[in-house]
């Protein structure tokens, strides 16, 4: 109890001043370490050093840089100019491309943060310039980014598989249908939203001749070539998903200097801005890491979940409470560390109730994805706030993203009613 008071009180008092959120999270974490862990605040420094000394994390700045290069060379503008006429008449217009591209990108990247960073760095400036509602853009990007974890390859499935001895191939296969389902529900939501409030997306009733629309496609093939090359480098065994981000940057630079107008100066600007952008996200990760460390070392998440396992409730009540607990914990901890902290309790608990391990993997991936978009610690939200240069505040991004995590909850309900949605494909393939 004292722990929760310190956590929430500390966060409100520090973050409320409007200080950089990373400092608020970090200071709260340091206070918890100091008062609850025998003053073991030195752990904070070790934790920071090990979280950034990570090869896997390097994909995030690489994907940000890739987006910056596309943006500054004019390639992404050409692509959006070409896409625009095609989507003009669909309610919601280009907003749907955010979801579609995030889905596609989810098949390249193993992480939700990379997906939001890569797609967002191109889509936000292009679409806000075209007059789309800013909150709606960032909402769709923050929500769409979460598809990166559900659609394989996925870091969360890899870690889940290794910690619980569950087949990784089956987990990957199980993520596909729910991933596309959630993506489709996102698009349906955007459609409904645009029908009810047409102002969020600029529309034109002037029909564009099909031939002209198709001619526009000549503008986008460099971008298509890039996406195919990045996917190809993974599928073809040239690069791991982490390395593919670096390969993508080099390909983007080549493509953009041949077909776009990338100059040395623009490249330098792209690098400079991606360092700044990565740093403002990175500083948040830094604070979140200290906070997560302070709670995980006390075994807090396990203790919360153990009370559930000892409660003797029925199967679905336990599932419901577990999901609610993840929603709560997901506010304070980033997804993957939350999964590592909780699995030793949740996995035996849920398998003991008769749930399929692969199915549980999908559910846990969805709940930790929700954690990526709930404030105050929601890394997808932060990367988008940073991308908009604080034009759209963290609070507004968070509000705009609420419908997307409600859709995730709906997906959990559907998966509970029809487990075959997740299990059909793995059973077919393995």
């Amino acid at each position, binding site marked *: 109890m004292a722990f929760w008071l310190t956590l929430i009180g500390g966060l409100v008092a520090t973050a*409320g001043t409007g*200080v950089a959120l990373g400092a608020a999270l970090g200071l709260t974490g340091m206070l918890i370490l100091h008062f609850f862990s025998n003053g073991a605040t030195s752990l904070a420094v070790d934790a920071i050093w090990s979280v950034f000394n990570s090869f896997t994390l390097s994909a995030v*700045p690489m994907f940000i840089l890739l987006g910056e290069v596309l943006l500054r060379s004019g390639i992404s*503008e050409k692509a959006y100019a070409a896409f625009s006429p095609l989507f003009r008449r669909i309610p919601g217009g280009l907003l749907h491309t955010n979801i579609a591209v995030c889905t596609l990108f989810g098949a390249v990247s193993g992480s939700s943060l990379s997906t939001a960073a890569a797609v967002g760095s191109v889509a936000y400036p292009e679409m806000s310039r075209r007059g789309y509602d800013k909150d709606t853009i960032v909402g769709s990007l923050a929500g769409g980014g979460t598809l990166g974890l559900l659609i394989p390859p996925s870091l969360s499935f890899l870690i889940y598989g290794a910690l619980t001895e569950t087949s990784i191939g089956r987990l990957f296969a199980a993520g596909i249908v729910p991933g596309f389902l959630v993506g489709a529900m996102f698009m349906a939501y955007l459609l409904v939203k645009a029908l009810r409030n047409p102002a969020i997306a600029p529309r034109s009733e002037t029909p564009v001749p099909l031939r002209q629309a198709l001619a526009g496609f000549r503008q986008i093939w460099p971008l298509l070539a890039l996406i195919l090359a990045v996917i190809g480098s993974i599928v073809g065994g040239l690069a791991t998903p982490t390395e593919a981000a*670096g390969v993508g940057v080099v390909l983007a630079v080549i493509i953009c200097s041949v077909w776009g107008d990338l100059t040395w100066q623009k490249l330098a600007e792209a690098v400079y801005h991606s360092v700044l952008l990565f740093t403002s996200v990175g500083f948040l990760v830094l604070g979140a890491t200290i906070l997560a460390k302070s709670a995980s070392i006390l075994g807090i998440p396990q203790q919360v979940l153990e009370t559930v396992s000892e409660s003797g409730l029925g199967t679905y009540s336990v599932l419901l409470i577990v999901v609610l607990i993840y929603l709560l914990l997901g506010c304070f901890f980033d997804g993957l560390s939350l999964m590592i902290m909780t699995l030793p309790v949740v996995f035996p608990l849920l398998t003991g109730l008769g749930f399929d391990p692969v199915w549980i993997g999908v559910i846990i991936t969805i709940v930790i994805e929700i954690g990526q978009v709930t*404030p105050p610690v929601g890394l997808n939200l932060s990367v988008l706030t940073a991308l908009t*240069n604080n034009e759209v*505040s963290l609070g507004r991004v968070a509000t705009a993203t609420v419908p997307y995590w409600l859709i995730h909850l709906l997906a959990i309900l559907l998966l509970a009613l029809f487990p075959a949605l997740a299990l059909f494909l793995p059973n077919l393939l393995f």
Partner: protein
Amino acid sequence: MIAITGIIVTSVLMRKFANSPLHITEEVVGLLLSVSLFLGLPMVTLRAKHVRVALLADFLKGRLHSAMQIAALLVGCAFFFWLIIETIPWFEFAFKRSLKTETSRILLYPWMAAMPLALALTALILLARLTGLLDRVDDSEAGADQSFTDGAP
């Protein structure tokens, strides 16, 4: 950032076409990533580009607003100074023992030095704001004039 890209791609090409993987890639990329983050930290702070929760602070006007700005700077200073104090024994430990990375045996302390240096610079910027040497802009006021994406055509 360029160095990270370069080394990853070289590593991929070496493995594929020369069948001789680079063993330093992972560790060097990790170190470069840390260093670029720490070097970016003072820059982001100087330009007031941090992600923050501005709900209450932006609501207040006039003197209350300034009071809140000072409170925010104090919280920031407290965090950075506390962290700096913690990095001293941490750095000393690595320096005295000449710790090296596991695989490629790269000496760690020159890289690790980036952390206390960056934290100190950042704390200095916050102090300068607190004492009025630098203007007390906060992130929302830094505004769109220097947007991350402004240089785009």
